[in-house]
C-alpha cells in the first residue's frame, strides 16, 4: 500500500523511521487517524515555508529515505573480501610496479616520511580510484572493478580512520554514544552491542570507564580504546586506517588483534618499530608512490620480542616516574 494512504497511527506504530523523519522537521500530527497524504495536504503553505521544503519535496525525500533504509536492512551490498591496489605512478611520473592484495583480517603497516603520499593512497582506496586520480592507481574490490555508484554509498565507505587528532565532540555518555552509532547502523540488539563494545574497550584501556562516563571526559587512552572497539564492531568499513597508536594507556597488541578478529583490513601508518613489525607486511611510500612492499621476515619477528622487552623496560621506568620514584638506576 502506498505510504501516503496509510494512517499516521499505523505509520508511527509500524515504521518508526517515518516519525523520526517527520520529527526532524518538527512535524507531529495530533490526529493519528488521518492518512499521511491527507494530513500533509491539510497543512498550510506558510508551514511549508517555515520548515523550508514544499510538500512534494518532503514526500520525495521521505520515499527516498525509506527506500534506502529498506535496502540497508536487506543487506544488498556485496561483502568486501579483498581489496587490490594496482600501482599507477609516483610524483615524478615513475611507474609503481605494484599489485597489492589486502585481505580481511590482515595487518599492513605504512612507512615513509611525512608528505610522502600516505593520505593520497588512502584517498585512492576510499574513492575506489579507476585511473582517475593524480596517481593513476586502480582499486579492485574482490578482484573486480566496483560499481562507480558505490562511491557515494554511506554503507560502502571502504575506509574507517582512527587518528591521534580525533576527539569525541558529542555531549553524551558512553552508552548513549555507542547506542546512537548502533541505531544509525540499524543494529537489532543495541543493548548487547553497547555492552560488548564497552567491555572490549575496557580490556584495551589501562584505566576502566563505565557506560555512564561522558565521552568528552574520557582520557586519551580510554578515548582511543573506545574508538577502536566501536570501529571494530559497528563501522561498516572493511578497511581501518590507524594513524600511529600512542604507547600510553592502551594495549596496542590487543587492539590490533581485536580488529583482526573482527576481520578488518588493518592499515597502520607508523614509525614505531614494534607496531611496524607486528604487521605481516609493510608498504614503503616515497615521493607519492608505493616504493616497496616488504614481507616481515622471520628474523624481524624474532627481533620483535627483543624490542618488546626494551619497551617493557621503558614502561616500567614510566610507572616508577609516575609513582614519584628516583630514576637513578636503569635496568
Amino acid at each position: 500500500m502506498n505510504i501516503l494512504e496509510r494512517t499516521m497511527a499505523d505509520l508511527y506504530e509500524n515504521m518508526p523511521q517515518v516519525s523520526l523523519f517527520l520529527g526532524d522537521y518538527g512535524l507531529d500530527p495530533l490526529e493519528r487517524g488521518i492518512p499521511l497524504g491527507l494530513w500533509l495536504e491539510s497543512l498550510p503553505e506558510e508551514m511549508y515555508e517555515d520548515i523550508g521544503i514544499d510538500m512534494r519535496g518532503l514526500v520525495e525525500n521521505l520515499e527516498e529515505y525509506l527506500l534506502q533504509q529498506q535496502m540497508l536492512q536487506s543487506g544488498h551490498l556485496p561483502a568486501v573480501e579483498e581489496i587490490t591496489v594496482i600501482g599507477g605512478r609516483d610524483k615524478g611520473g615513475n611507474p609503481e610496479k605494484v599489485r597489492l592484495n589486502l585481505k580481511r583480517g590482515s595487518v599492513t603497516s605504512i612507512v615513509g616520511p611525512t608528505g610522502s603520499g600516505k593520505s593520497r593512497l588512502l584517498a585512492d582506496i576510499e574513492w575506489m580510484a579507476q585511473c582517475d586520480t593524480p596517481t593513476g592507481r586502480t582499486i579492485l574490490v574482490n578482484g573486480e572493478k566496483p560499481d562507480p555508484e558505490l562511491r557515494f554509498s554511506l554503507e560502502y565507505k571502504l575506509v574507517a580512520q582512527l587518528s591521534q587528532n580525533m576527539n569525541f565532540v558529542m555531549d553524551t555518555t558512553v552508552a548513549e554514544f555507542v547506542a546512537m552509532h548502533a541505531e544509525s547502523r540499524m543494529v537489532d540488539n543495541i543493548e548487547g552491542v553497547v555492552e560488548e563494545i564497552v567491555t572490549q574497550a575496557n580490556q584495551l584501556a589501562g584505566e576502566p570507564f563505565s557506560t555512564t562516563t561522558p565521552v568528552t571526559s574520557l582520557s586519551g587512552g580510554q578515548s582511543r580504546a573506545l574508538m577502536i572497539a566501536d570501529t571494530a564492531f559497528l563501522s561498516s568499513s572493511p578497511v581501518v586506517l590507524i594513524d600511529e597508536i600512542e604507547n600510553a594507556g592502551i594495549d596496542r597488541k590487543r587492539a590490533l588483534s581485536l580488529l583482526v578478529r573482527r576481520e578488518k583490513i588493518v592499515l597502520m601508518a607508523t614509525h614505531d618499530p614494534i607496531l611496524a613489525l607486528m604487521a605481516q607486511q609493510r608498504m614503503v611510500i616515497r615521493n607519492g608512490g608505493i616504493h616497496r612492499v616488504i614481507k616481515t621476515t622471520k628474523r624481524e619477528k624474532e627481533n620483535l620480542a627483543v624490542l618488546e622487552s626494551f619497551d617493557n623496560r621503558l614502561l616500567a621506568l614510566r610507572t616508577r616516574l609516575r609513582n614519584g620514584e628516583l630514576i637513578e638506576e636503569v635496568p
Partner: protein
Amino acid sequence: MKLVTISGPPSSGKTAILAGVIRSMIASGIKVGALKYDCLATDDDTLFRSLGVPVQTGLSGNLCPDHYFVSNIEECLDWGFRHGLDFLLSESAGLCNRCAPHIKGVLAVCVIDNLMGATTPKKIGPMLKYADIVVITKGDIVSQAEREVFAFQVRRANPKARIMHVNGITGQGAGELASQFLHAPETTCLDGSRLRFSMPAALCSYCLGETRIGMEHQLGNIKRIKLKEEPIS
C-alpha cells in the same frame, strides 16, 4: 560555462574546499573563476587570487547576503562569460540557515562540518535539503563513529544528495569533488530561471531600519512566538 552554487554555514570550510577544487581544476587545464558573496568583510578573495584565477567579491552590507546574491548573479554570470570561463564557482555564506542560493538547473553544493553536532542537519533548511552534493568537512578531528552518525543524519535531511567527505586542510577528496562538478549542467542564461526554494519573507519595520522595541513600532510581516503554557510551580 558551468555555474556551481556553494553554500554553507559560516566557518564550515567552504573557501578551503573551493581552493582545493580550483587547484585540481587548474591542474586539469580547466578555466575557472570564483565569486565570493559575503556580508561585512572578506579576505577570501586574496586566497582565490593567489591561485591565479579571476575573482569577484560582493559585500551585501545591511542586506541579506542571499537576497543580494539573487539580485546580482546574472551580472556575475556575464562577467564569467566575458572571461571565457569553463566554470564559475559562486560561494555564499548561509547566515540564518534558512536562505539558499540554489537555482533549478544549476549544480548546488552545501558544505557542513562534523563539529556542528549530530542534530545540526535538521536545523539547516533549503541550503542543505535542496543541495545536489553535500560536502562534509573536518572529519579528521572527530571520531569515526561521529562521522558515520553525522552522515546518517545528513542523509535523513536530504536522502537524494550525494554525500562526500572532503578535508579542507589536506585537500583530500577535493579532486574527487571537482570530478563531480564536471557533470554539472551548462548555464547560458539565468533570466527566467527559478530558485529551488523561496527565500524567507522579511518585510517588517526592522528590515527598514527601525531600532525601537515595542508593539507600536512593529509593522509588516510580524510573527509571534508561541509560548507553551506550563503550570508554574
